[in-house]
């Protein structure tokens, strides 16, 4: 209910001094409410970093990778979490935009110093991110959201990425490799021009399966085709967690394929997000209250996601098929 904080949240006629203004932490969102005098109690808040742009590598006409100095975020982030980014130029939109943390950058001693964003131009802010020059700054708030669960070492982990949906899997792949979980990346795009960093994952020891709709790299067709074959071939005893990120139609197909074979999935949804902190309710998605439940409710994907169990998402209500 606290989409608004009231600077003078007390009986109006007794509003006296700024120092007496007291609001409260409402349990409903992550926006801080508690302000005692001018001493804000902001424990547990994500960091808001004015991150220096170290480099901007343009991969193609649409994709680029921006490296940012932001030790506080890099040290805290877990696979699948995101940052809310603000681009500061005249005419820039007011609201921040959500981006997955892509690579973690480290110094020679292995300490996290920053992270990169894998960006695809689709509108105003993503165009500005594409045009960024080193030396510029980008305001980044994070890490935010619920991370992927990292599968137990005994099992296997498959990642299914469509296009820019690759972004959250760099950190996940590193976490999986760190604990020795065998990892596979199923990675699809329209054409070879939408596939990047396959070598990066291979060097990490991830098995990579590629597909392009136009057949310009890997198997011709949708990535769900090889996924389905391998799923059918996998011994039932092998523990498996499938993580998917990409177009909604792809994630839906992956979740339904897996569910039919009794496999668990986690999908990373990408609704439009206004704040990333639970304050604006722009990002609500319909999820079932239990795995089999008929009842569903709208939950904010910035707080309760962006990662959700695939079988909890009410796909029909999220994005009906055409």
């Amino acid at each position, binding site marked *: 209910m606290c989409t608004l904080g*009231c600077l*003078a949240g*007390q009986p*109006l006629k007794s509003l006296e001094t700024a120092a007496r203004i007291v609001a409260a932490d409402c349990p409903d969102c992550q*926006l801080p409410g508690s*302000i005692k005098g001018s001493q*804000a109690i902001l424990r547990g808040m994500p960091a808001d970093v004015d991150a220096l742009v170290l480099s901007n590598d343009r991969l193609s006409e649409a994709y680029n990778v921006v490296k940012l100095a932001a030790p506080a975020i890099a040290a805290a982030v877990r696979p699948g979490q995101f940052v809310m980014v603000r681009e500061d130029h005249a005419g820039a939109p007011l609201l921040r935009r959500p981006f997955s943390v892509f690579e973690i950058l480290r110094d020679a001693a292995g300490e996290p110093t920053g992270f990169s964003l894998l960006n695809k131009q689709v509108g105003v802010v993503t165009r500005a991110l594409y045009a960024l020059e080193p030396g510029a700054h980008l305001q980044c708030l994070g890490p935010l959201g619920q991370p992927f669960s990292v599968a137990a070492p005994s099992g296997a982990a498959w990642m299914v990425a469509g296009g820019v949906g690759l972004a959250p899997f760099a950190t996940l792949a590193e976490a999986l490799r760190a604990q020795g979980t065998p990892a596979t990346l199923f990675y699809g795009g329209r054409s070879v021009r939408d596939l990047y960093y396959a070598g990066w994952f291979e060097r990490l020891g991830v098995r990579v399966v590629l597909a392009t709709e136009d057949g310009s790299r890997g198997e011709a067709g949708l990535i769900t085709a090889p996924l389905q074959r391998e799923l059918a071939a996998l011994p039932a005893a092998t523990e498996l967690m499938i993580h998917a990120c990409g177009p909604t139609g792809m994630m839906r197909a992956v979740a339904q394929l897996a569910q039919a074979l009794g496999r668990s999935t986690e999908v990373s949804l990408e609704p439009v997000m*206004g*704040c990333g902190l639970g304050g604006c309710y722009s990002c609500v998605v319909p999820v079932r209250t239990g795995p089999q439940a008929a009842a569903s409710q*709208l939950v904010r994907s910035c707080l309760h996601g962006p990662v959700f169990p695939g079988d909890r998402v009410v796909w029909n209500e999220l994005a009906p098929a055409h």
Partner: protein
Amino acid sequence: MLNAIGLQGIGVRRFIDERLPPLRDQRAVVIVNICGTTVHEYAELARILSDAPGVAALELNISCPNIKEGGITFGCSLQGAHDVVAAVRRATPLPVIPKLTPNVTDVASFARAAEEAGADAVSLVNTFLAMAIDVETRRPRLSNVFGGLSGPAIRPIAVRMVYECRQAVRIPIMGMGGIMTADDVVEFLIAGADAVQVGTANFVDPFIWPKLLDGLTAYLARHGHGAVRDIVGTVEIPDRSATTAPQRIST
């Protein structure tokens, strides 16, 4: 920013059971914003909330542009606004604060109607009814077609409306609309607001509160004031003849 969030409330019962207790534990001063589709519904909500311990006041949302039935229909008719406020007034001993819409020709007349109907204060402004179209798809950017415009864009209009209402009524005014900095808070107070609310800025900068509070405290100290009320409504309307070079444009 443009929003068509609708009202995502969890219902008054769950609000009282789930949200109110932890707020009460923190000794928070809770003003509950309510919205109904009939006069009766507003009154009923007010009655239920009056019995719940820990509610300090009721703000009546008679101005939400995102709810077809109710809300804005009361906010755009003087009679409707009067009736809702009067009904809630009868239903509750709590302070009643109707929240006015800016989508009207003469907002001050609505403030007057609210005062006459027994409101303890008025809040203004809610969002401006607006629309944006994606030129590539030719569809409205919001699925709902229309949405409410808030944020810095609307501030000069909101400040004007607060000033007009200050001239029209004696009850306190909660001013809002586009506050992003401590100077913006001060601007609303000087225009005549007794208190302010901040919406959109929270989404852009979750650390806005301490910044606003520190800035407001510094402003008061710098100008030798001990209390916020010392600057409320202190805008100086200059005497035309004694003015320096006239300023005809700003920003």
